């Protein structure tokens, strides 16, 4: 899970690049339609085989490492299930949307999956486009259309959580600061 095969990242330059194709869904997409209860209940493997199929039938079969999940407004509304973590497990390298629902947004960042909210600019990204996303700088290059979109970069403390691979890995990395964790 940890290896980002096509992602290059060095701490010094903060260059973390995700390059892949876009899987785009509409507005108000709820987490249950990304990760339905009956598959969640069946375990991780079945979930991976069926993730997102209610929205894009071919997604679970064709999604590749470092592909991009894109959406309209209020992405990931409804249930608090960690749909972003499952998307990340499926290989999604970055999420780009007009806006994200709070729980989805926070779950994603805390799972080490960047989410860029770009509002109206979302119309410049279509299903199947190829994008190159510079995570640290918030720069999104649409390699299909040649357009570039500038998203708001993350504050440093969020970037640290993302780079650690999520909040829990961040905690492990800073174990000494957590007095209730057994040290050593």
């Amino acid at each position, binding site marked *: 899970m940890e290896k980002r095969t096509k992602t290059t990242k060095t701490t010094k330059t903060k260059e973390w690049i995700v390059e892949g194709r876009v899987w785009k869904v509409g*507005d*108000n997409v*709820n987490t*249950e*339609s990304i*990760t*339905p*209860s*009956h598959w*969640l*209940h069946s*375990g*991780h493997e079945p979930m991976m085989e069926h993730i997102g199929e*209610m929205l894009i039938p071919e997604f679970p079969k064709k999604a590749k490492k470092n592909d991009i999940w894109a959406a309209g*407004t*209020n992405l990931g*509304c*409804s*249930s*608090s*299930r*960690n749909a972003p*973590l499952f998307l990340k497990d499926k290989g999604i390298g970055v999420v780009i949307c007009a*806006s994200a*629902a*709070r*729980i989805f947004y*926070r*779950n994603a960042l*805390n*799972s080490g999956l960047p989410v860029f909210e770009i509002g109206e600019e979302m119309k410049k990204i279509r299903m199947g486009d190829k994008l190159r996303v510079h995570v640290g700088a918030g720069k999104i290059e649409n390699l299909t259309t040649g357009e570039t979109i500038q998203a708001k970069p993350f*504050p440093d*403390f969020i970037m640290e959580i993302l780079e650690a691979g*999520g*909040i*829990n*890995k961040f*905690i*492990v990395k800073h*174990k000494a600061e*957590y007095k*209730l*964790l*057994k040290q050593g």
Partner: protein
Amino acid sequence: MPFTAVEKILMKHSVTPVSKAVPGDILTCHIDYAGMHEGFDARKYEQFTSLGEMTGVFDPKKIGMFMGHHFCTGHSDELAEDQKKTRDWAEKLGIRVFNFGSGIAHIIIMEEGLAYPGSLCVFGDSHTPAYGAVGTISTQCGIEMGQVFLTGTLWFKVPDTHKYIITGETKKGVYPRDVIQHIVGTVGMDASVYKCIEWDGSYIHSLPVPLRFPFTLMSTELGAKCAYIEPDQITVEWLKGRVKHEYEIVKSDPGASFEKTYTFNVSKLEPLICAPSSPENTKPISEALGVHIDQVCLGTCTGGSIYDFREAAKILKGKKVKARTLIIPGTNEVLRACGHEGLLEIFVDAGCDLFPPYCGTCQTLSIGHLAPGEVQMHPGPRNWPGRTAEGSFTYLGSPATCAATAVEGKITDPRNYL
């Protein structure tokens, strides 16, 4: 400078003292109560074990694990094992465990006074804004719960506040569940994304506390981060004997700035239903009359209070149900009240089936799963696809509409029975 209630509560809990907070500021805050329910797999437990060995938690009295909000183990060895692991882990750390059959976590947290006016709470479920009904600021916290359990703190972005002012008196046959359905249907599910919703107005303040839950809890269906109702005399009375310590009621200052204000008058509303398959798909009941319903659930977090069961019992008394009908009290307190008031007898005599306190069939994880093609109705907050079987459908309605529908086995106007 005047502040909103959410700004004041976040400021009051800030680890670093602050004299000002405006929307967009990020504050790290102390948490008064944190809880979570069981996961869909072992991940919720693994999110703690992946941190290494925890020698303790910030304060075991301020944490609860709700093992029965969603899942009974059924015949699953895996689930039973997961629950045992989680239970053993929680007990070792001194964390209270609420078992299957104890009911809906959010309601228990308010009934037991764990959330109280002015407090700041987090829980691993999207409907956590519910505790705003007692003047708490509460919001969902999931994968970050390790941070909370270890330090008792979490960072928050200070949200803008949207005020929803609800006035008027409802006509016969119209209930709070209809009113919130009307609001969601009118303004839409993205009306208040990432906002705090402050519910106000004579209608809201006329309701008993449990009938305020549908508004704060379903603030999630409006996209909100958290919700808040200014505690009044009704709140203070309801909390007597529940909160066993002093608390400070925190209110929005006069002149505080609300980003948006919505106003609704409920006087002309008719009973409503929410049709498949999105919580904003609101319709007048007249448009759905006669739709065949296989299963009715009376219960859920927005229809499982004693007030809801009283309304349902008025309709079911002396009748026989045609739809299979599940009675699922929200909590043990509600179950006890139903028994004490003779409602359980009415339900059983009407041919309903009684289940332990639980979250209901809004998401059919343990009880009342549907077959493809089947249609259910319940008073819960959601009817999205993916919450029950593929190819099944869910209508939402007030507890009274659900009861009338149970009697006829098809969507029925509750006013016919009132």
